């Protein structure tokens, strides 16, 4: 490649970066499934519709939970909705998923989870026995996470207007830790950790739908991470941000870090923990595990000097035994996530547009 071509290519790429930074605008006339997938379309919808309308300083950071100051107390408030299909899958069901998901959003905001709400939207004809199973696992999950479900709501819709059972939650936690976390605080020299093997929830649910004729000995990783977070925060003051790697997976979170903090995130593919079942299924389906949802894994951005302490702290917790340092934060090129592949090449790891779609050949 001649240098003239390089220069022209760089000009085009700069123009693209400028285009990407423009204010988000929803171009579609109707909501499509891509708007719910956690990728670019979701981000655009949130920024162009919700943030534009509701804009306030507490919402603007778009973190997993908002931090509220009430009197001298610092509270974290989050909300989440669960529409997983199938409702029951290996390793859990929509009930414990709802509790753990809400607890995790609070935990990664640095809060101790305290109280949850539970709203149920039920479809006419839904078996009460199934509802009882869901509620029982919510009870167990709440007990395990040390939270109480203190208020709730029930609505029933006509047959065909919902898919069995949807759950909406809110969660309140108390922030006692003095630190302030946020992906925008990441800076060059920081490291990126994940607390365990990625993608197990997403692949489990995909296989549980029974459309793929792939069988794997795999269970969802759904779990409350508050204990792991507490261990991490007790061990080091170097934590800058934590996220639970749900919809959109680890790659989506790292893109949020790169964008919010105007930094580059460089990931070493061979350092990313991925179990053989997840890897096998993902290879077959042509899906990158970095984009597959987890429900009990966190991504932490930590000061480079505290990297080993943070890693050791995570590994002390049963959920973090396979924790790993998967990458680091650099100054250039800002806003991008780069992957050093196992093969020895380098590529970009961008936000996905919608759900990862299987390739046809």
């Amino acid at each position, binding site marked *: 490649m001649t240098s003239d071509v390089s220069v022209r290519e760089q000009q085009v790429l700069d123009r693209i970066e400028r285009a990407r930074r423009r204010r988000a605008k929803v*171009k579609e006339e109707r909501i499509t499934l891509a708007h719910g997938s956690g990728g670019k379309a979701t981000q655009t919808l949130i920024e162009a519709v919700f943030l534009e309308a509701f804009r306030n300083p507490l919402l603007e950071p778009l973190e997993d939970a908002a931090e509220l100051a009430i009197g001298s107390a610092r509270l974290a408030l989050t909300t989440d909705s669960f529409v997983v299909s199938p409702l029951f899958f290996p390793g859990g069901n929509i009930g414990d998923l709802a509790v753990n998901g809400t607890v995790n959003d609070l935990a990664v905001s640095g809060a101790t989870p305290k109280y949850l709400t539970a709203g149920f939207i039920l479809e006419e004809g839904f078996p009460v026995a199934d509802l009882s199973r869901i509620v029982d696992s919510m009870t167990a999950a709440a007990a395990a996470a040390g939270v109480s479900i203190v208020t709730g709501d029930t609505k029933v819709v006509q047959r065909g207007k919902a898919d069995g059972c949807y759950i909406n939650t809110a969660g309140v936690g108390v922030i006692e830790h003095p630190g302030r976390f946020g992906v925008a605080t990441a800076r060059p020299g920081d490291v990126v950790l994940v607390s365990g093997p990625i993608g197990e929830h997403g692949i489990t649910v995909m296989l549980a739908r029974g459309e793929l004729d792939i069988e794997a000995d795999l269970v969802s990783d759904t779990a409350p991470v508050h204990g792991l977070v507490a261990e991490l925060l007790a061990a080091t003051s170097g934590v800058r941000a934590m996220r639970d790697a749900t919809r959109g997976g680890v790659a989506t979170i790292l893109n949020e870090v790169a964008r919010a903090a105007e930094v580059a995130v460089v990931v070493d593919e061979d350092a990313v923990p991925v179990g*053989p079942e997840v890897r096998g299924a993902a290879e077959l389906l042509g899906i990158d595990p970095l984009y597959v949802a987890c429900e009990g894994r966190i991504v932490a951005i930590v000061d480079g000097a505290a990297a080993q302490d943070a890693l050791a702290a995570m590994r002390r917790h049963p959920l973090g035994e396979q924790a790993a340092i998967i990458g680091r934060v650099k100054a250039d090129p800002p806003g991008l996530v780069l992957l050093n592949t196992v093969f020895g*090449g380098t590529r970009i790891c961008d936000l996905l547009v919608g759900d990862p779609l*299987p390739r046809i*050949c």
Partner: protein
Amino acid sequence: MRFVDEFRDADKARALSAKITGLCEPGREYKFMEVCGGHTHTIYKHGLEDYLPESITLIHGPGCPVCVIPMGRIDDAIHIARQPGVLMTSFGDMMRVPGSGGNFFDSNAEGTNIRMVYSPLDSLKVARQNPDRQVVFMAIGFETTAPSTAMTVLRAAKEGIENFSVFCNHITIIPAIKAILDSPDLRLDGFIGPGHVSTVIGCRPYEFIAHDYGKPIVVAGFEPLDILQSIYMLMLQLKEGRSEVENQYSRVVPWEGNLTALRAIAETMELRPYFEWRGLGFISHSALQVRSKYAKFDAELLFDVPGVRVADPKACQCGEVLKGVLKPWECKVFGTACTPETPIGTCMVSPEGACAAYYNFGRFTRTRVREASIS
């Protein structure tokens, strides 16, 4: 993981890279086309170009079925899906390909029922589960996927399934390669041959490339080392003054192809007189339709299909990209008006499309990425 890791070994890649560099003649530029979109995807996904000397350029070819489907066929599919009682099934890649009035997701938001399936046989399952619906499978792909469509038609016929049909968009690879070779815009030194297509058609159909056009072609596998080794084999042919068909992917591709699969295609499908390819225009005998013997499974006969030719958007340069005349980033709308979120052209839709692969994985000049990623 076995059967994967050994094909991504960085030490072997470095060794091959050195051998390739050693074969480069000073001052000579080499241009190889990887015909298949799956190869394009592998090249970008693994950062394979980091191993190539600057004098070797890879040109991304037309072998991405989603990329070459013209807009009119998407409109036709949506038109079928809108008819009462129709439930359409399609591969995931198709869902975001834009027609003139939106893609399948948009169409579903407006009321159609187009579902994603992983295999045509799954469509048959959908048909059995929905006896009150007409299930139409949007069939697309080269000879790679045509056999599974053929087998599905055969099974539907055997089981006497009445509510299943195929909207056939299968295309064949050889006419497209010939169109590229006859294109005056492009000078190529050789081809990385499509691996999956070749598992079906074998290696023999490529002989005209070597004999009539004097270009080497190496049928390649889809792991990064496969492609690197194929480039080495191409460079060796050039060095030794040979132009032959070679098979790097012999662990999967038999020289004669898969006769059972070919028979199934021949039984259920026949060549169309001509078919429109996005960017390449009308190419004669380049696509398949359901044979009249199986007419009751042919959605084009069962449903009203407008068949209107829709011109590509003016700004779109997919044609030039598909022929390898332009690099993705050289297209006027690349990355600004045309992005994976709001694609104008098909090359930006499928992960195998050259533009999408470049946008998602390679949107940075090599030198700068290298500087940034070295720890």
